């Protein structure tokens, strides 16, 4: 047509040009709406799935606040009425939870201190010092990660039996002072990202290797150290099998075993409100870890991916 045969670009678009622009804007708008609709649909789908995953927790809390007849209501009730808050203090005195919490904290903190100190120390040797045989030894460290615990379990038990360490937390805390392969691996990877110039500069200034570790590496590695402290604390809090093997006296139980003890005891006694109490106790055992996770979320996710992928 007449407007398209012009050789020079026009300052004002012609009629055909304008209608073309309007049409393409409409297409873009529609595409935007479709994209947003798609995003909404996906969001709803993902949340529906995540609700299914989260449902057990809702059920846990819901049951923990129920009164006797409501627990056994068929079909199941979601919202208890009345809400029986008393279940929580009652559950906490069913078995000595205060004592168990104390035991758990001693275990968690003791083990975490050991693991943090030793893993950083050992990881330094695998990353900040160049020495012959370093990599070979490191591969052995990695190899131990694939060794099933069961093969060492019985002799370990017998060693601690001979040492008289059974029925204490020593078998669970002392070995953490020799480092954990997983955390050594994680810290080594992290230490390797710190520029060697920093170490060299410190060496030139006459610092010892330990000095470099303490004054150069550790301050820079605080995020990674935080990750291993977090992971280890959580592992100890959740640990059931370790305490199960080494502890005899119920007075020494951590909360994981305390909860299990509560279940065994309540199942054999025809006490009312068994399930709400068990759910309340379960919620109390879970809550600290969940809170810990919420406050350290980013550190958490970084930690899992530090060795999971980049290794």
């Amino acid at each position, binding site marked *: 047509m007449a407007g398209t045969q012009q050789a020079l670009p026009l300052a004002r678009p012609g009629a055909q040009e304008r209608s073309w622009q309007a049409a393409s804007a409409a297409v873009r708008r529609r595409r935007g709406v479709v994209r947003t609709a798609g995003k909404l649909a996906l969001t709803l789908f993902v949340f529906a799935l995540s609700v299914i995953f989260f449902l057990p927790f809702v059920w846990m809390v819901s049951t923990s606040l129920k009164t006797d007849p409501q627990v056994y209501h068929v079909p199941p009730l979601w919202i208890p009425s009345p809400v029986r808050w008393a279940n929580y203090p009652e559950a906490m005195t069913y078995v000595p939870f205060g004592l168990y919490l104390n035991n758990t904290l001693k275990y968690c903190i003791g083990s975490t201190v050991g693991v943090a100190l030793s893993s950083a120390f050992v990881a330094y040797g695998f990353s900040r010092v160049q*020495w012959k045989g370093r990599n070979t030894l490191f591969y052995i460290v990695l190899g131990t990660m694939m060794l099933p615990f069961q093969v060492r379990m019985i002799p370990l038990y017998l060693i601690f039996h001979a040492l008289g360490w059974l029925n204490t937390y020593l078998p669970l805390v002392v070995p953490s002072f*020799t480092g954990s392969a997983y955390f050594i691996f994680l810290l080594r990877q992290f230490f390797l990202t710190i520029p060697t110039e920093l170490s060299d500069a410190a060496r030139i200034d006459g610092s010892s290797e330990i000095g470099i570790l303490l004054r150069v590496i550790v301050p820079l590695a605080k995020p990674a150290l935080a990750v291993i402290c977090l992971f280890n604390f959580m592992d100890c809090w959740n640990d059931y099998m370790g305490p199960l093997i080494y502890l005899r006296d119920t007075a020494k139980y951590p909360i994981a075993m305390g909860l299990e003890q509560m279940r065994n005891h309540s199942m054999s006694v025809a006490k009312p409100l068994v399930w709400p109490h068990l759910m309340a106790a379960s919620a109390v055992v879970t809550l600290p870890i969940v809170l810990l996770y919420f406050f350290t979320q980013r550190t958490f996710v970084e930690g899992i991916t530090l060795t999971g992928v980049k290794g």
Partner: protein
Amino acid sequence: MVARALSLGREGRKVATGLFFTSPWIVGFVAFTIYPLIASAYYSFTSYDVLRPPQMVGLDNYAEIFLHDDIFRIALGNTVYFVLIGVPASLITSFLLANLLNNDIWGRSLSRTLFFLPSITPAVASVMVWLWIYNTQFGLINGFLAGHGMKVIPWLSSTRLAKPSLIIVQVWAEGSSIVIFLAALQDVPRMLYEASLVDGAGRLRRFWHITIPMTTPVVLFVLLTGLIGTFQSFTLPWLLTRGGPNYATELYSVYLYRNAFVFFKMGYASALAWLLFVIIAIFSVVVFRSSARWVYYRTE
């Protein structure tokens, strides 16, 4: 000559420093790994009940395991079932969920948190909730079914359903795999997706030809660690069903624990332990060997 002595000295000093720093681990390795490995191999040839000194019985333990022990066969079968069905189930579910969570949606970090929560919950607490969910009379599912006049499902009391019920709980708690896969997905070069869009590739094609191949190294990692972990699975079956009903969930580690700390047959249990080690090693090697065929390493 002096130079050679000097360089030996320098190298030697570095080795000494290296060994100094790694010494805590070496001490632990010798005391808590090497010695127990040798000792358990020794005990596997004995009969040892801790009260009396170990009595040598040669290959009797192994003969008993292979020829006379029915429960060993059941336990091994149960565990292999778990590995062949549970591990792929967890892997596929977490991979698909990670892909879903990798999209641009609202409330992304909240939904990721919800999927991750089960994996950080203490096993004892998780088991307690699931016991109540699976409860035959008043549980979340059966209560609903019964209340509407339908037949209840005997999740944990049926020998047929007990293992799948356990696998459901295991898949539910697999949040850490989701996180690892998410990281791997974010590592896939954008450029590949963009190039495929130019060629007109649809979502499914992009998923099958780009996403999956580029994440196979991480899939191998999750597969191997899942395999090794599942063979050692103790806490979940022990807490949920104690190996029942009728040994339906008696996994290998449960049977091993029972022999060691309930029956105090330390020698027999040591033989079981070494057998487990060999079985895990065989499965791991098979998976690793096969990986050459389906894993794509970007550096090649």
